[in-house]
């Protein structure tokens, strides 16, 4: 049996091409972070030494950080260090930036992942219901509720959740991060739900209109004319096609989700990368800030890569 149809070969070469396309993206991210940090007012030496720094000390520190070298040379050092996993040392915590990020980033990743999952669990069935009951009561209620969710800022939803489910009902902890995996799931549930609230509203609206478009497509009529079971028609023919545009949106929104995590982690006192970012901004901890920016930017472009691959898998015409 020849099972490898010509269907899977284009997908493979598409993935390869798409990975190669990430190289210029990463270079661009490095250039921007490098330039941005150097555009910030103040310099690391003064930040380390404080107001009473004397010129000799500043020069000594600049020399030890390589800041006395010409800019292009500094950039090459910077690139070399990034690729060897050396993102410098935190000014405030006196620890390697890589170590700090490796501690904090998994927390944010787990939070974002939970939020994305919750958002999908909320959005997909409700989008279906709203689309099938279009212009009826169920549709109006679903869309109305999500409209409220969409128009409330993340920090406000977070505080609301904290007050109701944390402080009053005491169903969930009001903050922190557990030790075991199950404990962490429990601790992160409310923050994840907060993040998922507005995210699912965006997904639901998009998926609803996309399902309405697909459900009247002729291939759905043909599927019905073939006498397929309703469940197969809905999943294989309607949902799969409707998801194509939603997957793109999902990928684009992941960046926003990381941004939301910064706020949510602050509200719920979750020790993640978002909190770290806020702290390092206030503390002028440039190396941490720079390292975090690079890590998050790479993460976001990896998400784009994943959504593109998923989309190509959903829709073979993309990989052509």
């Amino acid at each position, binding site marked *: 049996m020849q099972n490898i149809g010509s*269907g899977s070969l284009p997908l493979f070469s598409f993935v390869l091409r798409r990975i190669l396309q990430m190289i210029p993206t990463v270079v661009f991210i490095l250039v921007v972070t490098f330039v941005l940090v150097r555009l910030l007012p103040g310099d690391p030496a003064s930040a380390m030494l404080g107001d009473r720094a004397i010129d000799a000390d500043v020069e000594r520190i600049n020399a030890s950080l390589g800041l006395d070298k010409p800019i292009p040379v500094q950039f090459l050092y910077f690139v070399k260090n990034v690729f060897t996993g050396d993102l410098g040392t935190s000014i405030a915590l006196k620890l390697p930036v890589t170590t700090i990020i490796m501690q904090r980033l998994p927390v944010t990743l787990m939070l974002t992942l939970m939020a994305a999952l919750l958002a999908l669990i909320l959005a997909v069935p409700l989008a279906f219901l709203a689309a099938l009951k279009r212009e009826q009561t169920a549709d109006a209620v679903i869309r109305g509720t999500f409209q409220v969710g969409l128009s409330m800022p993340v920090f406000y939803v977070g505080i609301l959740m904290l007050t109701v489910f944390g402080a009053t009902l005491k169903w969930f902890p009001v903050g922190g991060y557990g030790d075991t995996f199950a404990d962490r799931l429990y601790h992160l549930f409310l923050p994840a739900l907060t993040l998922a609230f507005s995210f699912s509203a965006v997904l639901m609206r998009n998926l609803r209109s996309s399902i309405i478009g697909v459900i009247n*497509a002729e*291939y759905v009529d*043909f599927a*019905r*004319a*073939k*006498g397929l079971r309703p469940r197969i028609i809905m999943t294989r023919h309607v949902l799969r096609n409707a998801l194509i545009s939603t997957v793109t949106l999902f990928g684009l929104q992941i960046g926003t989700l990381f941004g939301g995590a910064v706020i949510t982690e602050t509200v719920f006192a979750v020790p993640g990368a978002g909190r770290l970012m806020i702290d390092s901004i206030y503390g002028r901890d440039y190396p941490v800030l720079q390292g975090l920016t690079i890590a998050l930017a790479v993460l976001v472009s990896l998400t784009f890569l994943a959504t593109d691959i998923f989309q190509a898998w959903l*829709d073979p015409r993309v990989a052509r």
Partner: protein
Amino acid sequence: MSAGIGTGLGLTVRGLTTLFDTPRGMALAVADVDLDVGPGEMVGLVGESGSGKSVTLRSIMGLIQTPGHVTGKVEWGGRDLVAMPAEELRRIRGSEIAMIFQEPMTALNPVLPVGLQLEENLVAHTRLNARERRARALELMNIVGIPAAERRLNEYPHQFSGGMRQRAMIAIALACSPKLLLADEPTTALDVTIQDQILKLLLDLRDRLAMSVVLVTHDLGVIAGTCDRMAVMYAGRIVEMGTVIDVFRQPRHPYTRGLLGSVPRAGAVRTMLSSIEGTPPGLTDLPAGCAFHPRCSFATDICRQERPPLQSLGADRKVACFHHDRVAAAEAIL
């Protein structure tokens, strides 16, 4: 012949009426349609766009959804498809009655391989295992004349040419050896040469599989070349019916006469092609009396007031016109 009536064989449609509740009012898309299709018979349904011929097919198949509403009887094997519960109808659709659409590019799911779209039909109606389904799929691809079937089953619709796509759709529709095929303008989207191949294929399949076919088209040439009997639809109603030979030799409805007059013919004396003046009426706002009277050169007062009934003229001939004698006697247009 109307062999289907009462015998449980073939398709018997009685009083089929399809209404759509639109913002501009009730649209009468199909009105009181009677149609018989005997075993192995090929019946043509012809009319302009919006005449209700496609909606008739979809109503027979039970594909009309809200805001559409279907009444009347569609008898198949002694059962009424209109009154049937959804699950029972599902088992008939795709297995006993199949349907093909005008545009295979939109009727095939763009993101699924053709083989899967064929095999899911077998999954829905048979107990064949994966290997048997694959074998059946290959067999069907051969029947409809798609070369390199093994490879093509793994390909997607966009990788097929227009003619091959239509063949693929026919293969999918035929998967469970249906006894009746409803073909909705199967050749309209194709090049003329490919059109001819597809029609030959349909005729060949009809003979080999002893299948009845209802062929919807706006192309009289297609009807002439393939069908045994034909029905002409105008504004949702059947206005003339008969064997293809009879209707072509002597049309008795002015609309049929007009349709025939607008087709160029090889070998005939070259004259100006005639066209039917005006446009078909909107379905929410049909004219009183005969729906065709505003465009009809035979129309008199009665046509503006009363709707002509579809009356029998002999064994297998029906027409809905007060002036069918005058139409028949008019100078031959051919």
